[in-house]
């Protein structure tokens, strides 16, 4: 028995043992597929049911070049960014407004619990179902939206709304906003509730208006949460698949084609271009990895700041003890 070191070190090996299942599953189901995807990006792997890989001999980067210069991928990437931006901005503004209202000390909103439950509800429902539901709503000639527009005299006869690129994209943007603002709102509310109430009290005493309080106290104090929401939403947005796939499957005219849908279609339809899909996946992987690193550094700095504070306190306590000891001696 090694009893030279303090007790906990004897148990250190359990740190490794208990992490083994995670590590094995990660290697098998995450790391290996990631590396394999990257490798396929450099091969000629295509065709349903094909698995044998041969590296490209003429130009190793051909798939990447093809994908990056493909108008379809460029359009898909643009669409993804546009759809994300157009849903994130209103989603954030609405969530901020609601969070400010719900946490306002002066106008205590009653029934908050019920509102939160209802506004969050779309988020929990299967996106696939919602996409098909909305595609039914905009049906032609007898969908509910057409029915509404005709009945209230906005239009004379039903129109095929989803043939318009703007309408199709607009609906996808609406669905995304509608599904996510409730979640963002609850996150922001909990962030605001985490701010020390004294700050708000003193602002009130100083006669700060609602708007002033919001911009000078609330906003600066939830910066980290805002950034967290931004990055997670961006990563989620870059992977948007369910809604565009089942709403119009990228139509009309590729107006709702996102990068995830592009990858899926390359790999699992037509001529089963696994290699191109893998190259496109890797492009997205790199973008997301960069975003994840940014997030990591921001969050790590916060953690580290806390740690430093703890160390300082411990040092102080130690110094005090030392001083006390000296005095006693």
């Amino acid at each position, binding site marked *: 028995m090694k009893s030279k070191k303090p007790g906990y070190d004897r148990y250190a090996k359990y740190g490794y043992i*208990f992490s083994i299942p995670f590590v094995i599953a990660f290697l098998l189901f995450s790391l290996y597929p990631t590396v394999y995807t990257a490798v396929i990006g450099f091969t000629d792997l295509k065709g349903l049911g094909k698995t044998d890989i041969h590296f490209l001999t003429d130009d190793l980067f051909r798939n990447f070049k093809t994908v990056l210069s493909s108008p379809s991928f460029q359009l898909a990437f643009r669409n993804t960014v546009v759809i994300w931006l157009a849903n994130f901005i209103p989603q954030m503004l609405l969530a901020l407004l609601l969070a400010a209202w719900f946490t306002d000390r002066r106008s205590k909103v009653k029934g908050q619990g019920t509102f939160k439950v209802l506004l969050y509800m779309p988020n929990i429902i299967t*996106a696939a179902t919602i996409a098909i539901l909305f595609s039914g709503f905009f*049906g032609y000639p007898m969908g509910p939206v057409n029915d509404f527009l005709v009945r209230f005299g906005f239009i004379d006869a039903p129109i095929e709304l989803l043939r318009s690129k703007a309408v199709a994209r607009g609906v996808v943007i609406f669905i995304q906003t509608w599904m996510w603002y409730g979640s963002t709102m*609850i996150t922001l509310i909990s962030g605001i509730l985490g701010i020390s109430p004294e700050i708000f009290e003193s602002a009130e005493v100083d006669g700060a208006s609602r708007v002033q309080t919001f911009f000078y106290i609330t906003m600066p104090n939830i910066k980290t949460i805002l950034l967290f929401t931004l990055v997670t939403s961006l*990563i989620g947005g870059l992977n948007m698949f369910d809604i565009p796939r089942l709403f119009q499957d990228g139509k009309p005219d590729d107006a709702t084609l996102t990068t995830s849908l592009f990858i*899926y279609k390359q790999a699992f339809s037509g001529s089963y271009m696994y290699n191109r899909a893998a190259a496109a996946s890797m492009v*997205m992987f790199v973008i997301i990895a960069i975003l994840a690193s940014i997030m990591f550094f921001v969050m790590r700095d916060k953690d580290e700041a806390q740690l430093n504070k703890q160390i300082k306190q411990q040092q102080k306590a130690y110094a005090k003890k030392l001083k006390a000891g000296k005095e006693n001696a």
Partner: protein
Amino acid sequence: MLNNKENRVMKVVIYVVCIFLAILSVLPFWIMIVNATRSTTEIQQHAISLIPSSYMMNNIKILLGKSFNPAVGFGNSLIISIGATALAIYFSSLTAYAQVAYNWKLRNAFFSFIMVVMMIPAQVTMIGFYQMVYKIHMTNRLSMLILPAIASPTMVFFMRQYLQPTLSMEMVQAARIDGAKEFMIFNRIVLPIMKPAIATQAIFSFVASWNNLFTPLVLLTDQKKYTMPIMVSLLKGDIYKTEYGSVYMGLTLTVLPLIIVYLLLSKYIIAGVALGGVKG
């Protein structure tokens, strides 16, 4: 006085906006449920109605007469969601415990690693995953959708954040003195402490697994293995093109269980969402 009046106007504005948004949340599902009880002819005449009709059974009959089989989808989704959630919960707690309770050399490096990979979605590596699974002839096996849950970096992160201030090492030490083995301490003492975190994480893991479309869509080609979201996607097919009532019925059947469970657990779910934000 003026301030008071301003306050009252403000309040009216807040309530009007909130009620409008609440209606917006409910209305699509309401129209869906009502249309599920109406005949195709009724829907063709007026696609919006707030009053249910009497064709519910008829719609169910047409729906089930074709390829849509909610019972199979429900069963498969249940197996996958329960399996994945159980594995994710148990092994994430174990990994988090290794982080909090033991002092090992690679601990911090391992945690940094978890924080980086937790943001990377499985979707971008799906081609490699599909090829791997295909090669070993495991497509159409539900286990391929369950086992990856053993490594759930996000959940490890949240479990660690919960366990760090909660776990008392004195208790662990006491158990050791009583002769308990490390693995037993985790199962008998630590897991019960983590119950609140497990409850919220379980709900989110279950819902995410239940709603997942991408992975099952890639891996499952056998109709008998279809999950609920893939079943739903069948409703877009040509065979249901003119059966409006039964399409709405199919959608309703997939949504109702979720809404019921959501309303029952909403308190915990909302609290869980809030926790995610602060902890993040």
